[in-house]
């Protein structure tokens, strides 16, 4: 199967659906998280942390561009993907769409940690992707994510040394953990372009199986989740934080599934906050009646 993505014009509908589903979940995660990170600009605890969070936001936005740009090959541009898509057709996990409560820096650094570990694992599973553009873009993204992870870990360690800080981290963890699990949920194929009929929850698992079967990603979501847990749980526990999973339980998978929130994002169900955010970020585009998006940077190579 590998190699069939070398040319985009000969894709079967199965290949195209797998590609679109994978890239929207990747691009949407980055796009929406970046949007949330920018909320910390001019609001972070110090000028230094303000600069750092702004960096993260711009990195994630850059990654969103890289993933969305691969979809240009199948006729989907930024206008269609970011500015004119029905918000219900975004496929990011709910972890990235939740708003930050004012001043909740514990949420910012914990969310970044939970996300960046997951991000690193999924990028690893894309390094040998059968789609050459996807494989090529992984390297650049990974080098930046490494810095994000170190930044988040360092902040977590600092905050956890303080009683008040640790208490706030625990609150954030209790709230965010179920949403972090949505990162490993299969995505319902988004209704992009002309194919407006496909919004079938039952297809999600099958399409993700296609993603792996076609070699677009080389690990299953279950494998990624289990690897993620083996990293984040011991680390968080080492900071005296309690994680709501019992890895020695008889049926840990079922326990985890029970923790998942009602709206998972990947399934097209979102929290109210996402619709408000989408409304705000498309406001200028709509109010000025724009029909195209301005690019000022060159399209990424490869």
């Amino acid at each position, binding site marked *: 199967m590998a190699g069939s993505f070398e040319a985009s014009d000969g894709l079967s509908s199965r290949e195209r659906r797998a590609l679109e589903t994978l890239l929207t979940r990747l691009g949407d995660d980055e*796009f929406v998280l970046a*949007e949330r990170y*920018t909320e910390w*600009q*001019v*609001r*972070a*605890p*110090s*000028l*230094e*942390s*303000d*600069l*750092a969070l*702004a*960096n993260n*936001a*711009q990195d994630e*936005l*850059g990654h*969103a*561009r890289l993933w*969305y740009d691969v979809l240009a090959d199948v006729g989907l541009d*930024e206008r269609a993907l*970011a*500015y004119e898509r029905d918000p219900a057709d975004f496929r990011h996990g709910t972890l990235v769409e939740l708003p930050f409560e*004012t*001043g909740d*820096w514990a949420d910012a650094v914990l969310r970044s940690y939970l996300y960046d570990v997951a991000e690193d694992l999924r990028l690893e599973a894309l390094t040998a992707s059968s789609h050459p553009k996807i494989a090529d873009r992984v390297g650049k993204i990974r080098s930046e994510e490494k810095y994000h992870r*170190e*930044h988040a870990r*360092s*902040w977590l*360690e*600092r*905050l956890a*040394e*303080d009683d*008040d*800080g640790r208490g*706030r981290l625990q609150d954030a963890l209790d709230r965010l953990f179920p949403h972090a699990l949505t990162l490993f949920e299969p995505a319902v194929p988004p209704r992009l372009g002309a194919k407006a009929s496909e919004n079938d929850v039952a297809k999600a698992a099958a399409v993700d199986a296609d993603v792996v079967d076609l070699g677009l990603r080389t690990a299953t979501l279950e494998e990624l989740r289990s690897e993620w847990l083996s990293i984040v749980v011991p680390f968080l526990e080492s900071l005296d934080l309690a994680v709501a999973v019992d890895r020695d339980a008889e049926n840990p998978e079922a326990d985890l599934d029970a923790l998942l929130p009602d709206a998972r994002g990947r399934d097209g169900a979102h929290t109210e906050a996402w619709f408000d955010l989408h409304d*705000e*970020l498309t*406001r*200028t*585009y709509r*109010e*000025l*009646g*724009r029909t195209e*998006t*301005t*690019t*000022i*940077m060159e399209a990424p190579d490869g």
Partner: protein
Amino acid sequence: MNLETVRARAGPRAFSPADDLPEEYREAATRMIEFHANSEIMGAYLERPFIRQAPSIDRKLAYSAKVQDEIGHGQLLYRAAESLGVKSREEMLEDLANGDGKFLNCFHYPMESWVETPMIAFFVDGAAMRRQATLRRTSWEPYAHAMDKVCFEEGFHVKHGEDILRELMTGSRKERRLTQEAFETWWPRIIQFFGPTDDRSTHHDFAVSVGLKQRSNDELRNAFLDQYIPKARNYGLEIPDEPRIREREDGTYEVEEGDLDWDEFFTVAKNEYEPGREQIRGRRTAQEAVQWVREAIERDGAAGSHAPRAAD
């Protein structure tokens, strides 16, 4: 060094932290640089909503980077101010939060729509560029040094602002109309950016005599008008009838200062203009909300260690 010596030796980048400078100089320089640093922070505060409201990903990236640059300039300038030994960065940031810190008039006015963004990013930043370029020759070396980096980055901001203006003024009729309206609202404030005529400016003479300030308000404002009136017209903007602008025989411009609202200007300058107070309060609330982080870090044994850690 006494004041006479300072005046005699005043020249570009003449003084550094190695010099023993009189209090008058150090206080005047602190006031000037602190004002500049505060303006960077409040400018960033004003523009931050447009990161989200930008109508494309590239514009969003550029806006996020711009706001980040302004915070970086603030950081750099507070350091240059701190090096005068009068006030610490914490004190300056605290004064800014509680409404004692002063900053540029334009950043007291709220911004509501994308069509207003080039009023700051092109005109105000362009005006700032003119002033900052002259400050590369200021007598306080750390300030001049900071200006090298600031001017370099501001150049990109102004280009981006100009590109947004060009896009709006070549866009739909609605976009052109809204942009013209925004221009009419902002134009008098932009002209007032340079402050009142020199003979009404409180600190002007001293700052010039010790080399802190290189050019007068009037010179800078006139140079700005000469450069930006043709630019504005070139993009299809109409210069409002008021304040009256006189074109001299040599093609340069002069504004009828009496047409500008100086009562409002001085109200703004004293942080007493209500919408500006709202901006100050908004930023203060955001700062108070993360006070717990600063306290948590101070408690966790890092007291006294200012060494940067990865978490910065």
